[in-house]
């Protein structure tokens, strides 16, 4: 016994003429489309499925304020829409088998730096943290779908730049990057303004005692060749 009555007259034929298409009907369709999906849905996606001329932002705003007080809210994140349970109800819904990714402290720090400083290169991340990013830390963030390669910096070496994804915003309940907590204060304090003035120099990481894969260690032979050790020379204390 399905309560959903099938109203044949709602399936209007002349969807091409916008005025004949009621706002309520557009809301029903948009609601159904977003509700059906676990992933946020872009306005483009909705536009493809709604009749031409429907003011999608208006429809979504109206729906969103309608749901604001309910147990399920319509949320916008990175210009995509999704239904999410209301945050204040987490205490009832919270599941025991909560599959939220545990992040290491390093990964969390790198994530924050990428979020606030994007587009940011790996070298800049290391400059901020003062330590090399261990292999796999970025991998964890990329696998989670929160961090992506954005492009390359147009500087010598063309280093790859990193940034966050729309899924990052969705996961942390942010509508857009400007909603990052404390962004304005950090900016105001000059803490996001890229680089330290060039005449400031503090040793950077990168001196990890592990050899890079593209270098070979200096051998005894090399040192002898360079005249830095006499052949068979003893080590000095």
């Amino acid at each position, binding site marked *: 016994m399905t309560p959903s009555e099938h109203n044949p007259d709602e399936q209007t034929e002349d969807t091409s003429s916008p005025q004949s298409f009621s706002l309520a009907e557009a809301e029903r369709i948009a609601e159904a489309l977003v509700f*059906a*999906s*676990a*992933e946020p849905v872009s306005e483009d996606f909705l536009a493809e499925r709604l009749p031409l001329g429907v003011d999608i932002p208006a429809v979504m705003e109206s729906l969103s304020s309608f749901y604001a007080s309910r147990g399920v809210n319509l949320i916008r994140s990175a210009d995509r829409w*999704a*239904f*999410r*349970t*209301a*945050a204040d109800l*987490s205490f009832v*819904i*919270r599941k025991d088998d*909560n599959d*939220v990714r545990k*992040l290491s*402290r390093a990964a*969390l*720090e790198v*994530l*924050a*730096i990428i*979020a*606030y400083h994007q587009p940011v290169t790996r070298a800049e991340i290391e400059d901020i*943290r*003062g*330590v*090399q990013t261990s292999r796999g830390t970025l991998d964890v963030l990329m696998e989670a*779908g929160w961090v992506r*390669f954005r492009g390359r910096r147009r500087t010598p070496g063309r280093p790859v730049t990193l940034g966050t994804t729309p899924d990052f915003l*969705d*996961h*942390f*309940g942010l509508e857009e990057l400007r909603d*990052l*907590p*404390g962004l304005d204060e950090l900016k105001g304090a000059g*803490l996001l303004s890229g680089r*330290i003035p*060039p*005449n*400031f*120099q*503090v*040793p*950077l*990481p*990168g*001196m*990890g005692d592990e050899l*890079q894969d593209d*270098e*070979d*260690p*200096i051998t005894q032979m090399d040192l002898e060749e*360079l005249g*830095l050790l006499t052949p068979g020379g003893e*080590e*000095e*204390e």
Partner: protein
Amino acid sequence: MAMNIAPGAIPMDKLWQEGPERAADEPALMIDVGGFEGPLDLLLHLARSQKVDLARISVLALAEQYLLFVDSARRVRLELAADYLVMAAWLAFLKSKLLIPQQAKGDDGPSGEEMAAALAFRLKRLEAMREAATRIINRNRLGRDVFARGAPEHIPHRVRSVYDASLYDLLSAYANLRQRQAVTQVTIERRKVWSLSDARELLTRMLGEVTDWTALQRYLLEYLPPADRVTATASAFAASLELVREGKIEIRQEGAFQPIYLRNGQQGLPARETVVDTF
């Protein structure tokens, strides 16, 4: 003395009190270096123990604390990663600059005060990022505090393409494949050496904009474990020759076995001969 702070009241204090009565097997250091994410993290930790606003920390005191820490680590033969030693050398250099009264202005790069300010800035920035990270992670998270539709009916797809794959999928497929195909090599155990490029990077970074003659190696070697000194000296020397050839640094030695002084090459001019055009 009534004001005497009980030993251990400030946890960090334990670090600096190497009581002679300490049992030989007792770990002398209460700080686990492994618990720190590099020298900057350690510095931040030390700075916090000064219990003042980061903007008002005494960088000199901080440098001294750090050097003391490195010293005590060396005394108990705790192996410190090169990162920590490089920072120690740099801080020793900074300390000497801070202690020497400022010379004639403007002709020899950043003053000790400017360098100290840069360090304070970096500490502040790192701390700010830490706080930001905490604020992000404490937001309502999807799947923990806020939930998506449990039984989605339809997954919308991107416009146009029927197939989906992310750049990450693509890159990891490629990396896996290439790695699988790469000939497995016999790995020979690494000798503990400072490679030429280690040394090169180190020199470049430490020298920075320092334009006056400095016996930088002296600072560095002091903080290296004896076993590393030969290799570090050799590599640093070879690297400095390379840098001189490229015009990146200048080098001076008074005589055989005298300290080697280094300074930034060409006073900021690019290494290669630059034709100056008039525009």
